[in-house]
């Protein structure tokens, strides 16, 4: 138990560079996340946060630099490769199918089947999917309407919860969240932040992009600041003030090494 709970480094990104045509989007991004840790990646618009996430989730490939998962350098040439390595991404636009119910969304693309006529015809086993989803949701402290409810009738926070739960259901080591609280109200934001802390307690490494520094200070263990495509500062949440972070984001402070 203690062995499993000792933080191990899950993700290390070193000197990541990416150019889109004339624009040097990333000029040298460095960051690392360990198991059971929440790292917030902050920065102004265009600082390169989303581009970095895309590299780590395998959607885009860097021009230079290395991405290491559990100490091994990897080439993430597609989302499925990242997924196979235990990286799950919760996108800003949630990527849920509104017309399907909660269970179908949790198991989208990974549906369980049972044989109707053995060897000839199998059907989707919704009951088994629901049965397997319940303990995972319970362990995350997630309370949702009956799992057969269509996602369309859920609130913004509940939808975000479904999206996060889907990432966890597949036993991921690293969960990437892109602006998870952007469209949410106060109470919903709080429950999503609680959920992120729960993920960390379950020994998952979490990388969160956020604009909202209040949220960042509530949820993150460490904060990495990007500016103009470069990592400009690493902070520990407990050792930094809101003003320091803002100064690093806007470039009002000297580069902080760590």
């Amino acid at each position, binding site marked *: 138990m203690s062995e499993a709970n000792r933080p191990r480094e899950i993700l290390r990104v070193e000197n990541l560079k990416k150019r889109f045509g004339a624009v040097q989007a990333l000029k040298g991004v460095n960051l690392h996340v360990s198991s059971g840790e929440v790292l917030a990646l902050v920065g102004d618009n265009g600082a390169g946060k989303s581009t970095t996430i895309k590299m780590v989730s395998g959607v885009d490939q860097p021009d230079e630099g290395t991405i290491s998962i559990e100490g091994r350098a990897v080439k993430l040439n597609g989302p499925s490769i990242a997924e196979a390595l235990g990286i799950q991404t919760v996108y800003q636009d949630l990527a849920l199918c509104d017309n399907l119910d909660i269970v179908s969304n949790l198991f*989208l*693309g990974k549906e369980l089947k049972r044989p109707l006529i053995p060897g000839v015809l199998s059907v989707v086993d919704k009951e088994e999917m629901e*049965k397997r989803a319940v303990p995972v949701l319970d362990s995350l402290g997630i309370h949702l309407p*009956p799992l057969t409810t269509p996602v369309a009738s859920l609130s*913004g926070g509940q939808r975000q919860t479904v999206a996060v739960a889907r990432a966890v259901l597949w036993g991921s080591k690293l969960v990437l969240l892109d602006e998870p609280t952007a469209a949410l109200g106060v109470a919903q934001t709080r429950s999503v932040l609680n959920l992120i802390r729960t993920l960390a307690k379950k020994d998952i490494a979490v990388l969160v992009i956020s604009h909202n520094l209040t949220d960042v200070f509530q949820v993150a263990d460490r904060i990495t600041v990007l500016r103009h495509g470069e990592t400009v500062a690493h902070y520990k949440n407990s050792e930094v003030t809101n003003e320091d972070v803002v100064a690093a984001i806007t470039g009002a402070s000297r580069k902080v090494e760590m």
Partner: protein
Amino acid sequence: MSTVPGQKEPTSTNDEGLFSSIKVRLASGDLGLIPVIIALIVIWIVFQILNPHFLDPRNLSNLVQQIVDIGTLAIGVTFVLLLGEIDLSIAAVSGVSAGILVILATSWTGPFGAIIAIIIAILSGIAIGVFQGLWVTLIGVPAFIVTLAGSLGYQGILLALLGDTGTVPVINPTLLAISSTYLPGWLGWLLAAITVAVFAWATLGQRQRRTQKGLKATPINQLMLRIIGVAIITSIVVLTLNLYKGIPLSALILILLVFIFGFVTQSTLFGRHVYALGGNAEAARRAGIKVKWVKVSVFILAAGLAAVGGILGASRLGAASPATGTGDLLLLSIAAAIIGGTSLFGGRGSVYNALAGALVLGSVENGMDLLSAPSSTKYLIEGAILLIAVTIDTLTRRRRIKAGR
């Protein structure tokens, strides 16, 4: 909605009664079969008042035979609409396959020849579907254009096939028998019993699996009510048709197709992926669903079903002509799916709705013919029904977006 800070949002009521399930449906903008069944009842009452022969077993038997080709095409349309796509070529495809069928059957007059001709006609539809599906998915030309262009081309092919002979009659007795055979009364009742038994087995089986896995299950009383409801409806249908000549074979084929493809949409992986794709294609792609494969398959299905519809139509009319599949078949088939409640925007609807929609349109056609109303009135009324159906869909969708976030 106000929530106590620090607590999770309130879970909705655990009572999964009929009322709350209707509320959920309203909220999600999925009214299911409710509006179309109300429409059907109203239409039947009106026509029965205007002409007391409308609900005669004989007329109802005619009615179900008249909707067989529209209904078959509408099943395929439903799949395409579930993806949020459109197929404008199905009527022309049904014409081509009818043309191929009659030409082959003029030289092959035996029952074996009929079967081979049917298979080749269906394969021709499937080939067209492969072509269109690949063109849409691999090259990325909108389905609207590919199938519109296809539709023109297939009409040309039909003209070339039938050439100067013009109308070709069906002389193969096996082909003609498809639409002139009625099942004996006892067989109708046997099929009704099997239908009810399968329905009961499926619903009770699902309940049993849910209880075994410790999930919330629908109360047994409610399931029994549903089973009794299905039994009553099936009995009325069989009783009515048996009062005339029995269940028409062509109608049985349509009902079988509806059941098979209803099962495909609801229970198979392919069907679930069709819904996922229609709901959010990007989400489906990210979840690892083979989006292109699903799309191509759906276009193949639509064209294949169009070919089957063409065969059934040729059998009923006893001929294929250069005009086969032109007329209003295309628009009526699409209208049938939409009137049944399948959304034009993708992701919502079902094959059963298509059957209900075809019944609504068929009833209007048939009722108007009984009243010897002119085509002008018929078209006006069908147009109005389509407009109302899409308006209901749009309004519930708008309501859903409001409720959604």
